[in-house]
């Protein structure tokens, strides 16, 4: 239960379906981060973001949304700043990171610094394994994230990500 954990200031949410090969990149990214046992970082896994995740992200200073990308990306991954947007997807099953941030501000008056981590994949079949390209891209994304963690100032951190 989230509330019983040691207080973390950064949250990483892995989004995707590990039963669809490279769609599991978001979860695999978070799993690797958990293995590093980094202080002050909490991890969550989601098939899709849902409205109640607004309450969750409101409890953190910084939030990362890690997900697989269908598009090829320079360096195999991309980390971008994520800003809140007043937008609603037609089903309750799935909401965007931007909408979750909007709801966090509207409902809980919290506006965490947020980033999306897109990791490129290319195999979406019904199996539970990453393609070779996805594995390479995952390693690159982890290295990029580690640099961010080891950076001492917020300005430098932003520079690394962007």
């Amino acid at each position, binding site marked *: 239960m989230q*509330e*019983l954990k040691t207080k973390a200031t950064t949250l990483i949410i892995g989004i995707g379906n590990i039963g669809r090969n490279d769609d599991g990149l978001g979860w695999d990214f978070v799993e690797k981060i958990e293995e590093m046992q980094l202080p002050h970082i909490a991890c969550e896994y989601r*098939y899709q973001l849902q*409205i109640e995740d607004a309450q969750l992200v409101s409890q953190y200073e910084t939030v990362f949304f890690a997900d697989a990308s269908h598009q090829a990306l320079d360096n195999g991954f991309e980390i971008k700043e994520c800003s809140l947007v007043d937008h*609603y997807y037609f*089903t309750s*099953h799935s909401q965007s990171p931007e909408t979750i941030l*909007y709801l966090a501000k509207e*409902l809980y008056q919290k506006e965490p610094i947020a980033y999306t981590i897109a990791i490129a994949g290319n195999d979406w079949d019904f199996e539970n394994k990453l393609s070779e390209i996805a594995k390479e891209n995952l390693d690159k994304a982890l290295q990029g994230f580690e640099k961010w963690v080891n950076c001492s100032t917020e300005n430098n951190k932003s520079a690394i990500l962007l």
Partner: protein
Amino acid sequence: MSRKITIDPITRVEGHGRVTIHLDDYGQVKDSFFHIVEFRGFERFIQGHPYWEAPVFVQRLCGICPVSHHLAASKAIDQIAGIDPKDLSPTATKLRRLMHYGQVFQSHALHFFYLASPDLLFGFDAPVDKRNIVAVASEHRDLAIKGITMRRFGQEIIKAVAGKRIHGILTVPGGVHKTITETERDYFLDGNNIESIDTMIEWTKEVINFMKGYHEKNRKQLDEFAFFPSGHLGMVNDQGELDLYDGKLRAKDFEGNIILNDISTDSYQEYFAEAVANWSYMKFPYLKNIGREKGWNRVGPMARLNVCDRIPTPLAEKERQFYLDFSGHKIINSTMYYHWARLIEMLYCAEEIKLLLNDPDLLSGELVRQGKPRNKGIGIIEAPRGTLTHHYEVDDKGMITRCNLIVSTTHNNDAMNEAVKWVAQHVISRHGNITDGMLNQVEVAIRAYDPCLSCATQALGQMSLTAELYNHKAELIDARTKN
């Protein structure tokens, strides 16, 4: 010139559907259909798998009500392991019930606050930018926060007993694989980490009071909108009380006459058949003795409150009595009363959760029992959306040879089509033009049933919902797609 309107996708429902409305030469509604065109598959996928996989496998039908499929399949698989519901240990039964009440509580909260509340707060024909939870969050912040917190409370109950909020596992054939700890139990009672169960009860009463106030101001609309006669089906216990986990099946017609008299769930095949239509993957269950045309029944909260004699918890029963006062304690056939009934069921679930959390059997006791294996098992529960049937047959090695699922939403298939027809005839036929607001009223009528279209067809992939308008020559002349 005659025309055909299509609404696609139907918004704020679980899954994807499509509505077509056919107009005649004079612009009057000639016919209407609620199409479900997703692929149905799980009944076939599960064949050849060992029986004990079923409760884990079939809950992947849905991300909203996996607990319902987990428990219905488990009740069936218990029988294949030789254990009937009454033979399950008290600890196993109570843990399953706790999970089920948590599931219904969170599912009803999701529907009322996230999906239905914009219709009530902003009007049936409100502009598109108002018809979502984001607008509710902006203009009714306290209500939105309560909705999110209540949904999360139910999800945390599921997580405590099953390990995960979605697709967790509690059951094994003949029982459960774990209890909960005192710390996990106290998490829901003491209010130190999350709002307590007492707060959930109070908040649910507040939301019911909101609904009563809404009813007072809008009674004519609630009474008349998508009103039509039908049968009503639900489960009751031996005392005739509402029971969501186990009991007998009872149905009443639109006037309250008994048409299915407390039959054993094991004999459902003697009484129910399923029809098909060439314009939808979703089947049409009906009572054999009444026939296809008039033998279909509504299921879910309104139907359950119509068929039961009482609710076994005091606060919810008091609210049911107040709710029935408006119909003179007769059967309610007005679609929009589903919303009110859903809230009363939330209160019932919250009361039951509180009782169970204070029951020492949750913390320790016998987990699993074994019996003489059988080749058939039938599990029926009342899922959030209505009566849910899982039926499995296995060979002597325990491999599944046959599976039949009658998912709650399929029982409401005819009702949703009737609701669409009502709106088409009463709202769209009456006007020379067709507005977004009118089309939204079609969705309002469907949404009241809280359909889970993915469950109902065991969907693969994704389909958006379209509204199409056809002329008398069956030519598409207009379409609106929502995605």
